[in-house]
């Protein structure tokens, strides 16, 4: 999807740790100086807390068929005439409490987003380090693959991976495999940017004196990569990861909305919106509205944080 | 002295940062007579380019003129409205930048860039403007200008491009040309040619020149007077022969000692120990005091104003009459 390239100023002494640079860039001061960023940060925190503690907050468990009754289906929200006091945001066609479903959906969406970003980051960082450090043929093969993949939009890759993995797991229960399929789809769609950034930084770092010195005293390449080069590329990686988290959440929601993500029995925010869309014309507006607002607010908050982080770590762009 | 063409008084330039304003230029004062060539020397970061940019009104934010005044033919130009200042740029003050490779728009033919400049400042017809562009190119020494005028910048060598840049700066016959390191980015072999072109054209077009460079050799050959800058201040200003032969300010002495001599032996500037302070860490008193071989207590407390010594001025307490006598010249030679 969107192409972000991130670079940190290269003039810093290489021995300075990432944390040292964070402190140096007045990260906290710049965070507090922007009201929008503080609100975005607070919102993100609330979303994460809500996701973690969903089972404690939610009145019912929407994944448990025994706690949902069809007789309660399509109840409007509590604050609307005709609303039922038990259901803060109303119910869906299965009689599930929408408030509970959103909390659980948020949990699922964030989990998949975080795991997808972690997988993509792990693949991308590893390949980027290898490509940058090894150079030569290995480098050109990895980067060629990255180039070709980059010409395809991430959502298309995710859809393809989704289709292929589904075909390979044919006969398995969709409810058990959906989570893994989504994480793999997202991970394989979003590794390229890490790889490119990390490769670029690795190429720079590997010729630095301290890396040459480490090589001379006989440290293994793996150790040099992990101990010396990796810490120096963490800044850009963190920025990419934050922005990719927003993209991953969107991708999961989109796949679920398209009907190839999470099944209606264990809905994510995207699945809830897919269900709600069917009731748009019949007047049950709440089923689509509340999950949509939640999703939009979540992605916006994470994006704002990502934007701020990029600017704070990259003074050149200010 | 004739009425000055340009008069700069107590110019002060600041950069607004999150931690408060940083003073980049402080108490810059000098006059420039019509047709005169003033050399400005100093290390990188001494404020040479900023002085030029401040005069032509092209300081980039967050930089701004925070004090003092700049007069062109007696008229203040440091507080003009943007549109009025724009009319002065190009027509009355021209500027040449360091890198001819990046000074020209790569997507436009050099003829188009010349013609647009001429049309901006004169009432010539496009056809006449083109003729004038060709004659300017001839003047700066571009061979076959009728043909080359339709070339793109990348089709010219670095030296040729800088000639085009000089032609561009002279389009509207400005009375003052600010040349900011016009030869630094060029091959040593063409540097002298470009300086010669600049000098000849300035004379023919009666333009005064502020020649900014860190190359004392160029100044010695080209300029009438020279200003030595250090840490955003003028350390010494005076006639070139005097300043080169007998510098007064200890910093200027160090700088002159670094000029390559005919014998080809140049002492390194590094003979002044230490480095120029950052803007955020300029010491109190004289900015040069931590590196100065002649430093004494007063230099650490009180900032020396430009003190007149003959036709020169030097900002150094050594020359504050009645306090200390100038040291013997042997100390540096």
């Amino acid at each position, binding site marked *: 999807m*969107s*192409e972000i390239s991130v670079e940190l100023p290269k003039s810093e002494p290489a021995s300075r740790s990432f944390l040292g640079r964070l402190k140096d860039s007045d990260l906290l001061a710049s965070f507090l100086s922007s009201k929008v960023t503080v609100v975005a940060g607070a919102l993100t925190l609330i979303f994460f807390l809500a996701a973690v503690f969903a089972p404690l907050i939610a009145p019912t468990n929407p994944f448990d068929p025994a706690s949902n009754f069809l007789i309660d289906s399509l109840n409007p929200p509590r604050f609307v005439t005709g609303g039922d006091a038990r259901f803060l945001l109303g119910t869906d066609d299965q009689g599930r409490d929408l408030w509970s479903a959103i909390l659980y959906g948020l949990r699922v969406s964030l989990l998949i987003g975080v795991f997808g970003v972690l997988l993509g980051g792990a693949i991308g960082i590893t390949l980027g380090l290898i490509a940058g450090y090894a150079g030569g043929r290995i480098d050109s093969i990895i980067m060629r693959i990255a180039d*070709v993949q980059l*010409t*395809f*939009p991430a*959502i*298309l890759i995710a*859809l393809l991976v989704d*289709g*292929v993995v*589904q*075909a390979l797991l*044919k006969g398995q229960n969709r409810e058990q495999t959906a989570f893994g399929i989504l994480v793999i789809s997202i991970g394989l769609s979003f590794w390229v940017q890490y790889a490119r950034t990390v490769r670029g930084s690795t190429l720079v770092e590997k010729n630095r004196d301290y890396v040459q010195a480490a090589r001379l005293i006989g440290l293994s390449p793996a150790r040099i990569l992990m101990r010396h080069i990796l810490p120096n590329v963490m800044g850009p990686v963190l920025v990419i990861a934050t922005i990719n988290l927003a993209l991953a959440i*969107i991708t999961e929601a*989109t796949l679920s*909305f*398209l*009907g*190839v993500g999470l099944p209606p029995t264990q809905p994510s925010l*995207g699945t809830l*919106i897919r269900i709600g*869309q069917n009731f*748009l*014309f019949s007047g049950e*507006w709440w089923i*689509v509205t509340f999950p*949509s607002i939640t*999703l*939009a607010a979540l*992605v*916006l908050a994470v*994006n704002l944080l990502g934007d701020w982080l990029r600017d704070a770590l990259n003074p050149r762009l200010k | 002295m004739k009425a000055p063409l340009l008069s700069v008084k107590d110019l002060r330039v600041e950069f607004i940062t999150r931690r408060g304003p940083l003073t980049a230029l402080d108490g810059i004062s000098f006059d420039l007579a019509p047709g005169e060539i003033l050399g400005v020397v100093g290390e990188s970061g001494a404020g040479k380019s900023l002085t030029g940019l401040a005069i*032509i009104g*092209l300081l980039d934010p967050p930089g701004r003129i925070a004090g003092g005044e700049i007069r062109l033919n007696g008229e203040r130009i440091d507080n003009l409205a*943007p549109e009025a200042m*724009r*009319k002065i*740029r*190009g*027509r009355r003050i*021209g500027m040449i*930048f360091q*890198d001819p490779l*990046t*000074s*020209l*728009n*790569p*997507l*436009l033919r050099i003829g188009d860039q010349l013609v*647009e*400049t001429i049309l*901006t*400042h004169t009432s010539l017809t496009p056809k006449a403007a083109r003729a004038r562009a060709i004659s300017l190119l001839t003047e700066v020494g571009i061979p076959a200008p009728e043909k080359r005028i339709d070339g*793109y910048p*990348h089709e010219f060598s670095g030296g040729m491009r800088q000639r085009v840049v000089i032609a*561009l*700066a002279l389009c*509207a016959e400005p009375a003052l040309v600010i040349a900011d390191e016009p030869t630094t980015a060029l091959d040593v072999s063409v540097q002298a040619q470009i300086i010669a072109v600049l000098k000849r054209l300035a004379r023919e077009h009666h333009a005064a020149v502020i020649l900014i460079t860190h190359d004392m050799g160029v100044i010695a050959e080209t300029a009438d007077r020279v200003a030595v800058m250090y840490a955003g201040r003028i350390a010494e200003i005076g006639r070139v022969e005097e300043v080169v032969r007998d510098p007064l300010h200890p910093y200027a002495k160090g700088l002159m000692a670094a000029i390559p001599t005919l014998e080809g032996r140049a002492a390194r500037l590094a003979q002044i120990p230490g480095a120029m302070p950052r803007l955020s860490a300029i010491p109190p008193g004289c900015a040069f005091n931590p590196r100065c071989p002649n430093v004494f207590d007063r230099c650490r407390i009180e900032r020396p104003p430009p003190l007149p010594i003959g036709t020169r001025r030097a900002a150094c307490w050594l020359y504050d009459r009645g306090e200390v006598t100038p040291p013997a010249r042997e100390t540096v030679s």
Partner: protein
Amino acid sequence: MIAFIIRRLFASIGVLIAVGLIAFLLFRYVGDPVNQMVGIETPESERVALRQQLGLNDPAIVQALRFLGHAARLDFGISYQFKQPVSELIGARMPATLELAFVASILSLLAGIPMGVYTALHRKSALAKLFEALSLVGISLPTFLIGILLIYLFAVTLGWLPSFGRGDVVHIGSWWTTGLLTASGLKSIIMPAITLALFQMTLIMRLVRAEMLEVLRADYIRFARARGLSERKVHFRHALKNTLVPVITVVGLQLGSIVAFSIITETVFSWPGMGQLFLQSVQNVDIPIMAAYLLFIAFLFVVINLVVDLLYAAVDPRLRVAIHGA
């Protein structure tokens, strides 16, 4: 120049072959083509015969070459779910998608470039801040949400625009259909096109803004100012042109991805295009369609890349010479 184009063509063919091989791997090894084509009761002997007939027992390299050969002649086999030739299925839906993508591209360019220029030139103005806030929302709102929002506003609440389908279409020639010549077709394309364009518009705006800010810091801009050129000339004659050169590349590729992104928009608006077909093929593991669609997108990108290269050379004199020299 010609040598350059030929070199690019060879590189493009390389990419197509690589993608083609991936498509072949999908086709051959993900799921069993024979199982997909016959019923459960089909006797083993018939399966073996079919396997032989399809050449599935040949060496993999022979099968791969055969697959590529067929693909080059636009023969992608028979869809598992529709039991029709894939090329016919895709061909019938192609006009709808391309038309939608075309209108969306125009929209995103016409809105995105001026907004980007404006926000770069007037960074502090209220309108620029509004544009930037909108762009952040545009990037944050998933496409399908924008579609649903539009449907809710203009179809459900106001009843102005149709919420699904393509309206009436007119045949042009034997193959192409267009909705752009009928009132209902034009009405139908408004919301899908806006939905599809919004994300790209946001990206183009941000890209133009960033690029223009970069260009405005360039030496030749400062020199243009030092020559006393008017701000108008500096901005629109010098800065804009230089901004648009690098933008061409990215925008070209973005427009290519519009076709792929239309999968989502087509689903929201039940637009009868290739995207919907592809989505159905993913849901039903209809590998021949997935493979063909993948190749189609790759082909599209290759074509766009070539066009972008040529455009680039037309705009930037430096490259013209580099190409001549090569």
